[in-house]
């Protein structure tokens, strides 16, 4: 068993980055995730693992530093919160277009605009539909506990390198600020120069030896036929992710009449709602998507075949609910899908969710 600690989600993200052999973190302060860089700066990993930590002049610069480092085959990451992620979307689109692996963490706060510093899930669309310009997708992981904030850092890098695609951890202010018991991962050494050459030498820009052709990292291609072929390759990659990387958790779904679907902090609330509803005799289950892209479409379809209705619970105006409806439609079923959520930094309470479920499906 690894080391047990009581830590904030944001602190754990930093600790996990150091321990998974991350090479570089580039960031810019923004509430409610500033503890990520603060923790890194206090830990001084450059003395321990050689990991570089740099406070950039802006989120725009941060993501482009990540782009530069990622192109060299390094494990590079950044973290921010909603308005900062918006600033990064240009760079994220370039990274996706250049097919580079990296990790972007969004500890979401309420928007739009400067919004609030309180937790939110209003960046769901931005995260799962690409976010910037062009047809691209991020691999999106949604942790629901401080433990998963730890576990998903390594997982995100693994998936990012497997697919040469940016991965995102979509958390929120509650997960960032909350402390829980966490079992920290063991240290993994950073890749050596030789390992990078061996693993990623076919594309990484580490300097051209005489033995190979030059490596060029770019998202630019003015020949439309080639550009279309590039896009087809990207789409095939996203398709493969949909086949191989879907992750979710089912709680009390076996005999459920109604399924609540919720991710991240909302899913924690809804676990309690399931307990309350069951105590009142309502057969309710919870589907918790862990990957938001790829979305767990198949299981939604399977559950739709045997339940009376779905309730999507989100800390936004109803975004994931659209993906649930699409999944049910694709599976050829017709089941009512409702939404309940709070916005602007308000977290719904377990009781509110149960009330909403009753109002929508179980009118006495």
């Amino acid at each position, binding site marked *: 068993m690894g080391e047990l600690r009581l830590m904030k989600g944001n602190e754990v993200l930093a600790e996990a980055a150091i321990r998974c052999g991350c*090479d*570089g973190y*580039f960031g810019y302060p923004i509430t409610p995730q500033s503890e990520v860089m603060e923790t890194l700066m206090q830990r001084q990993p450059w003395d321990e693992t050689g990991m*570089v930590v*740099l406070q*950039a*002049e*802006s989120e*725009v*610069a*941060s993501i*482009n*530093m*990540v*782009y*530069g*480092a*990622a*192109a*060299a085959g*390094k494990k*590079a990451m950044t973290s921010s919160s909603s308005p900062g992620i918006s600033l990064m979307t*240009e*760079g994220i689109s*370039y990274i996706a277009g*250049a097919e580079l692996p990296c990790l972007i963490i969004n500890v979401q706060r309420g928007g739009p605009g400067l919004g609030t510093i309180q937790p939110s899930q209003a960046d769901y669309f931005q995260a799962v539909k690409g976010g910037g310009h062009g047809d691209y997708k991020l691999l999106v992981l949604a942790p629901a506990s401080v433990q998963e904030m730890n576990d998903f850092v390594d997982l995100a890098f693994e998936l990012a390198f497997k697919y040469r695609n940016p991965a995102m951890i979509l958390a929120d202010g509650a997960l960032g600020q909350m402390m829980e018991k966490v079992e920290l991962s063991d240290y993994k050494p950073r890749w050596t120069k030789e390992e990078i050459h061996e693993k990623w030498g076919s594309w990484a*820009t*580490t*300097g*051209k*030896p*005489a033995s190979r052709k*030059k*490596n*060029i*990292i*770019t*998202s*630019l291609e003015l020949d439309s036929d080639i550009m279309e072929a590039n896009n087809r390759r990207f789409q095939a990659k996203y398709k493969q992710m949909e086949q191989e990387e879907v992750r979710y958790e089912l709680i009390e779904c076996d005999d459920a009449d109604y399924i609540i679907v919720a991710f991240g902090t909302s899913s924690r609330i809804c676990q309690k709602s399931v307990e309350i509803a069951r105590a009142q005799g309502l057969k309710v289950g919870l589907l918790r998507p862990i990957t938001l892209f790829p979305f767990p479409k198949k299981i939604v379809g399977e559950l739709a075949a045997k339940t009376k209705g779905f309730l999507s619970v989100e800390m936004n105006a109803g975004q994931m609910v659209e993906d649930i409806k699409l999944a049910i439609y694709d599976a050829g079923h017709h089941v009512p899908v409702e939404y309940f959520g709070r916005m602007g930094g308000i977290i719904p309470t377990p009781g509110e969710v149960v009330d909403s479920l009753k109002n929508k499906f179980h009118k006495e």
Partner: protein
Amino acid sequence: MDLKELIKPENLVYKKTELLNDDSMHYCPGCSHGVVHKILAELIAEMGIQEKTVGVAPVGCAVFAYKYIDIDWQEAAHGRAPAVATGLIRLMPDNFIFTYQGDGDLASIGAAEILHACNRGENILVIFINNGTYGMTGGQMAPTTLDGMVTSTTPNGRNIDLNGYPLKMTELIAQLPGTSYVTRQTVHTPGAVRKCKRSLKKAIEYVLDKKGTSFVEVVSTCNSGWKMTPVAANNWMEENMVPYYPLGDLKDSEKGEIVSEN
């Protein structure tokens, strides 16, 4: 005499460096980019640093720089090359990293990135091509466009009241303690090319010695954008650009404080 007999090593008077490939460049005839590419490629070959060099290409006419020089390259978003280069040099401190940027890229949209990279003293070389216009998008006003200069977005000439003043980036950069060598050159005559190459070499040496950021501005022409013949463009540059953007070293950390050759 047969041509075959002429082609012998002892008769060779000029040879293209092997680091420049045989692709025909997309640059307009008379453009300064080709010359700067050539001397840069020559220097990387002559200094034997190909294996550790990574270039960062901009958005602008030099967006395809990566096609021509046989080194590893990254293509950056508009203005972001200094941030990309920062990511590279921080994680590969023993490599040689340079950015190659135009005036729109460096002085306008990327003003923040270049100032902060230079202010941190990143060990990178910045090559700044200043031709006073946006060449690639068809000759619009750049931050460095001269007062009264006609462009497609200043059809009656740049108006200071409306557009502000032509920005002297290099003077600004020279003030930053993070920079070690800051110079302004041209490549419009054989003599200027030789001088520019000497400056670029010094700039690379300073970066390899980890002295901080080297910054080389090349005052350039854009005969297509300026709608002039190459010769007329060279003359116009000498008469109008050079007086506003005076040539020479602005800073050489080996020689103490800011110096001026003029």
